[in-house]
């Protein structure tokens, strides 16, 4: 079940982050695209939370899992909770950087295309069904992010600079993908989950090919701190994100539509 929460939290947190562009995107069509993207992710999160809640069986619902867990209980990659800005951005409400959003969406979608493809053969039939649906969505997300990545990288000097800066900033956060957490290892051993480390070469191939087309340079590997969001050790940004997302539900815990 922790494995399902990891997948669900990834989708929910990134969905929430991308939704921040609503009303603020650089052009109208991308405002809609980001909203679509977020809705796809939140839909994936709902399906996964429902499945996890049914497995937990202790009265948990998708809402209690999404709105009433604290930051230390969330199992998403730290990459996904970062604000749309440069390193050391103090808050998420500053100027949002489109290149950061696109690079992050690209790096995550490139991973999830491989993960969902593997999970479509999961021994957990419900997860396999969710994977089959999500795979179509994430293929489009990947194409959207990749097209934008190429246009930004191989674009003007300004867009190239921003895209390279975003890549330099975000790529180290993807190191977290490759060491399995205990729930991931347990799920993979059962055949229910994906062995993400085995997907590393394919992900690198996808990413390198896109970067080449975008004339972007992969930053030198840094053997430094590997983020541990999926272990519950998050950056300070997650608590602000959850504060905004959960405040309404927590203010009216028994409300129904």
């Amino acid at each position, binding site marked *: 079940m922790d494995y399902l929460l990891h997948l669900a939290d990834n989708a929910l947190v990134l969905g929430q982050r991308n939704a921040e562009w609503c009303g603020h995107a650089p*052009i*109208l*069509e991308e405002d*809609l*695209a980001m909203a*679509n993207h977020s809705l796809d992710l939140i839909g994936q999160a709902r399906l996964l939370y429902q499945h996890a809640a049914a497995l937990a069986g202790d009265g948990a619902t998708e809402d209690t899992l999404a709105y009433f867990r604290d930051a230390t209980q969330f199992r998403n990659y730290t990459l996904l909770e970062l604000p749309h800005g440069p390193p050391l951005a103090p808050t998420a409400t500053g100027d949002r950087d489109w290149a950061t959003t696109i690079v992050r969406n690209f790096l995550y979608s490139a991973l999830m295309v491989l993960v969902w493809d593997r999970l479509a053969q999961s021994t957990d039939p419900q997860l396999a069904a969710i994977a089959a649906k999500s795979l179509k969505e994430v293929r489009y997300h990947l194409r*959207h992010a990749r097209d934008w990545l190429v246009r930004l990288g*191989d*674009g003007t*000097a300004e867009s190239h600079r921003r895209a390279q800066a975003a890549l330099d900033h975000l790529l180290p956060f993807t190191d977290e993908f490759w060491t399995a957490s205990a729930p991931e290892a347990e799920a993979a051993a059962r055949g229910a989950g994906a062995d993400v480390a085995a997907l590393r070469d394919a992900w690198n191939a996808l990413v390198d090919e896109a970067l080449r087309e975008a004339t972007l340079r992969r930053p030198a590997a840094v053997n430094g701190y590997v983020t541990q969001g999926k272990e519950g050790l998050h950056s300070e940004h997650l608590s602000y994100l959850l504060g905004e997302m959960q405040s309404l539900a927590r203010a009216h815990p028994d409300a129904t539509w």
Partner: protein
Amino acid sequence: MTDTQPALKDWPLWEVFVRSKQGLEHKHCGSLHASDAPHALQMARDVYTRRQEGVSIWVVPSHLIAASDPDQKDELFEPASDKIYRHPTFYEIPDEVGHM
């Protein structure tokens, strides 16, 4: 997209046509600004098909569309209005032929 190409900051206007699942023809549903054709297709997908409006998208740069002049509407279209003998509605179709 390099700095040697002119005026790439200006995104041209594209007209979007979408064909629905049951439809035979692409219907015009709107327009958008995009830098090039694949970009226009992707944006049209996000803007004009998010409520399941269709299964096929055509985008055409607006300047390539030649349109009839609205000031000539009278001479182009009025004369047809009183020539109902051109409509194929005066045949009696035998029942064996079925629906046409």
